[in-house]
């Protein structure tokens, strides 16, 4: 399941659904709104392109790390400290592929998926700068 959505997800259900035949390891990454002196966070996506790009990343990770299952759910809208922002679930036969595949996916998402975050503070708000100067570099 590759999605950009406002709703939260049921992580336990995702993990169960990720147990495909041959699975020996599941790795979940959960990116969380961190309390950097903010009140809330507002996330915005170029949704159609973001989903297409995440699907591309999932396919590349599946092939490169022989993953058995991939979920990527990126939330948008208004989130609070402690809320889930990004959930990545990967299954593999063995743990090295599961860890490497999970890490590959998050790093690629940071590079190329058109999503933006604004941290809302008592004094207003600030857009979080991209980690990669040029952004969307691989699209």
């Amino acid at each position, binding site marked *: 399941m590759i999605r950009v959505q406002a709703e939260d997800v049921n992580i336990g259900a995702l993990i169960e659904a990720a147990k495909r035949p041959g699975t020996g390891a599941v790795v979940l990454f959960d*990116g969380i709104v961190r309390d950097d002196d903010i009140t809330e966070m507002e996330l915005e996506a170029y949704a159609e392109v973001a989903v*297409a790009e995440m699907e591309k990343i999932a396919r590349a990770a599946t092939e490169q790390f022989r993953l058995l299952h991939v979920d990527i759910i990126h939330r948008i809208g208004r989130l609070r400290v402690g809320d889930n922002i990004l959930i990545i679930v990967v299954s593999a036969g063995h743990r090295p592929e599961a860890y490497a595949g999970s890490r590959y996916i*998050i790093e690629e998402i*940071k590079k190329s998926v058109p*999503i*933006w*975050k604004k941290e809302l503070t008592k004094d207003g708000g600030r857009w979080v700068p991209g980690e990669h*100067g040029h952004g969307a570099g691989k699209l």
Partner: protein
Amino acid sequence: MTVKLRFFARFRELLGTDIIVEPHDGTLLAALVAEVARKNTDGYAAIFDEQGTFREFVILMRNGKRVETAEAGTITVADGDEIAVFPPVAGG
């Protein structure tokens, strides 16, 4: 013809989004973005430098595919195009 412009993040705050324009045939992509951006001084300055060139970090897409800003002055828009203009991505 009809073209849709989508701005995101800071650019959206300054310029709005889902802007429908009706350019004449042969309009260049860079010129179209500049024309729409000019309605707000800060919005224009966020995207273009003093020489009217796209700022180095600006990302352009046409129908979901990346277009180099350096080439946007040579590409004409077509009916039904969706042009997206945004700052570096910061998801995850």
